[in-house]
C-alpha cells in the first residue's frame, strides 16, 4: 500500500510540483495550503508523513509543528520542513519544535524521495 504524505504549502504551484515529484515515486499525496488547513485535514485523514513549508499565512510551519507535537492525535508523525529558508537559527527552531528534518528548496526529486523513505523506514 502506498504511503500517504500531507504536503503543506501556500503556493499552488509548489504543491503541484511536490505532487508530481511524490506521486511519480509511488507516494499518495494530499494537500493543505497552510497550518490551519493542515490541522483541519488531519481531523479526517492520517498520513504517514507531513512535509511543510515555513512561510505561510494564518499558521506558519513552526506553528504547525508545535501544534502537532503538543498532544495532537498525530503527534508521532514524522515532519519534514521544505523551505527556502537556510538560516541555522530557523533550522534550530524547527528541530527544537520537533521537526524530523530540514530540506532547502529548490529540491531534487530523488534526494527528497530518499529522505522520505529513510524517515519512513
Amino acid at each position, binding site marked *: 500500500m502506498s504511503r500517504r504524505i500531507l504536503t503543506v504549502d501556500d*503556493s499552488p*504551484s509548489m504543491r503541484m510540483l511536490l505532487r508530481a515529484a511524490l506521486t511519480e515515486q509511488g507516494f499518495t499525496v494530499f494537500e493543505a495550503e497552510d497550518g490551519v488547513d493542515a490541522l483541519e485535514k488531519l481531523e479526517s485523514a492520517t498520513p504517514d508523513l507531513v512535509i511543510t513549508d515555513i512561510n505561510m499565512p494564518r499558521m506558519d510551519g513552526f506553528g504547525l509543528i508545535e501544534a502537532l507535537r503538543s498532544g495532537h492525535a498525530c503527534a508521532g508523525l514524522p515532519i519534514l520542513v521544505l523551505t527556502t529558508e537556510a538560516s541555522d537559527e530557523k533550522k534550530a527552531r524547527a528541530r527544537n519544535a520537533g521537526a*524530523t528534518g530540514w*530540506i532547502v528548496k529548490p529540491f531534487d526529486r530523488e534526494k527528497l524521495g530518499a529522505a522520505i523513505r529513510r524517515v519512513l523506514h
Partner: protein
Amino acid sequence: MSQMSTIAAMEMRRLTVAQGDSLASTDPDVLFTTVLGSCVAVCLHDGNFGVGGMNHFLLADPAPLADEGSHLLNRYGLHSMELLINEMLKRGATRGGIKARIYGGAKMREGLGEIGQCNIEFARRFLANERIPVLGEDVGGFSARRVEFRPKAGLARCKIVSSQPPERLVKPVPVSIGDVELF
C-alpha cells in the same frame, strides 16, 4: 500600480536586480533597475501595504512551449518566484493583495530559439496558477529593455534599449540544490 511617465531617479537609491536576484522593499527612496534581453523580470506590488519587489530570471531547463504542465513545474522559475513572494510577505504584503507586471523575454538573436518566449510563458502560467492578477506586460520582440521600478509606490517604467549591443549568449545562473538534513 501604474505606468509612470517620469521617475525622479536623481534622488532615488538605485539597486540593480541581477539575474538570479529577488528583491523587495518598502523604502520610498529605493529604485530597482535591471536590463533584460531574453530574461524576464516580474514586478510585484501590494498597494495596500506599500510593498514592491522585482526578480530577474532565465529558466535553466525550459520545457517545450506546448507542454503546459511541465512548463509550470520548472523548479528554477518556481524558486525565483517563491523567493520574491516570500520577500514581499516578510515586508507585510498579503497574497491576496499582490498584483504583477511582466517584462522582457525578447528574442535577441537568431539561434537562441524560444528561450525568451519560454520565460514569458512560465511567468504567465505561474501567476495565473497563483491567482496573482497581471496588470500589464511589455514582453517579446527583438530588443533589450531597461526596467525601473519604485517598489513602495508600485510605479514601473520600461524602455527599449536600442543601443544595447547584441546579447551575449546568456546562461542561466546555476541554482544549487538545497541541502537535506535529517535531525
